[in-house]
């Protein structure tokens, strides 16, 4: 399959990338790992007029400790997050999530900035970003995760706005992310995350709606002393997932409850 023709330019700094995006106009796109964009372009579901390749911006690939925060440069690849000693120590759930994204070939290319900007309903990092109150920093502003994932494939990013980094709080208490899928390298049919933090629980769900979901009803039930299995019954409260080839809406709601229970029970 051959994508539609497009203009191509390499940027060596964020300023240059932003300028190029502005010059090309609305139909230009950033090219990061390419592992969501190129598959869409091959199917011609995406036909950008121009691609601005940011892979040459070396200072966007970093993981920095910053007090009670961890800052991930937008070009940090899944493989780097998976193996990072600081991440394993300060935010182990993210290293575990990274290690379960796609396969080695996907993890060698895909970037955290790309997952966040793409805002696929089945993306894994967005769930963790939402439930831990992460922030998305662009070349213009800082956006809280809860204001970032607006709808499926929809974020507040302007056409010439570039994600620079994703900032997570340190969280190294008991945690678990369970991703339900039929083959090891598949996207989640449904995913559930549990993280103990500041004495309470944070619970997040993947692919049960157009955006990631924070299961506040479960968090509150746990806070008032409910057992995991009781609290997890609330995981499907208010959900209205759409069915797809792999799961009906009812089945996704069932998975949300079962996986939430398991995630809380297996958190360590």
């Amino acid at each position, binding site marked *: 399959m051959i994508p539609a*023709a497009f203009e191509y330019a*390499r940027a060596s700094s964020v300023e240059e990338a932003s300028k190029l995006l502005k010059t090309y106009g609305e139909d230009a796109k950033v090219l990061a790992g*390419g592992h969501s964009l190129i598959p869409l372009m091959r199917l011609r579901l995406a036909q950008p007029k121009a691609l601005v390749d940011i892979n040459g911006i070396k200072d966007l690939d970093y993981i920095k400790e910053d007090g009670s925060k961890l800052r991930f440069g937008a070009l940090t690849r899944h493989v780097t997050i998976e193996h990072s000693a600081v991440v394993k120590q300060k935010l182990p759930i993210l290293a575990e999530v990274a290690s379960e994204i796609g396969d080695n070939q996907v993890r060698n*290319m895909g970037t955290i900035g790309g997952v966040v900007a793409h805002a696929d309903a089945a993306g894994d990092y967005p769930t963790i970003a939402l439930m831990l109150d992460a922030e998305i920093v662009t070349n213009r502003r800082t956006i809280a995760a809860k204001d970032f994932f607006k709808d499926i494939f929809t974020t507040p990013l302007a056409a010439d706005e570039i994600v620079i980094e994703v900032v997570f709080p340190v969280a190294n208490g008991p945690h678990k992310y369970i991703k339900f899928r039929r083959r090891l390298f598949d996207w989640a049919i449904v995913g559930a995350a549990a993280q103990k933090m500041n004495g309470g629980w944070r619970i997040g769900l993947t692919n049960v709606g157009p955006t990631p979901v924070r299961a506040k009803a479960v968090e509150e039930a746990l806070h008032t002393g409910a057992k995991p299995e009781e609290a997890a019954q609330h995981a499907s409260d208010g959900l209205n997932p759409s069915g797809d080839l792999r799961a009906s809406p009812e089945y996704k709601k069932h998975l949300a409850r079962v996986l939430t229970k398991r995630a809380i029970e297996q958190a360590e």
Partner: protein
Amino acid sequence: MKHKVSTTVNGTRREHEVESRLLLVHYLRDVVGLTGTHIGCDTSQCGACTILVDGKAVMSCTMFAVQAEGKQLTTIEGMAKDGELHPLQQAFWDEHGLQCGYCTPGFIMAAAYLLSQNPNPTEDEIRRGLEGNLCRCTGYVNIIKSVQSAAKTMGGAKAKPAGRPAVTAGGE
């Protein structure tokens, strides 16, 4: 508009003018003329097109040729040295790690990356390391044996034997 791309493919410098939409796998097969890298699915699912880009396993169907500017590429054609098969190639041959062979170049490149990161993988680590490669013929057991055998030849000290015993002709 065409773009100049210079890469090193299996140790040889290459320079071409290419369209930006040309996928790396088409560049290797149709422009450079190395057809050992296969296209299995064209949808980033099967791993048949796996090559090494600066030593990392990458699906060449999910990268544009223009992105390979300045990179070192290794394809299956770059594995044998001086007429001698690479230990992985030899092991796939010896352990019957292939039947039709369509998936094999991708498996060998993915396995080469795996062994570069972990010279001594357990069976489980091999299964996980090759999760992005699909084979429709072998049932995978002999592929895993092949990688274990290659790991041994390449110096991995405690390569474990395959988990499942081979079926003996005529049954027990």
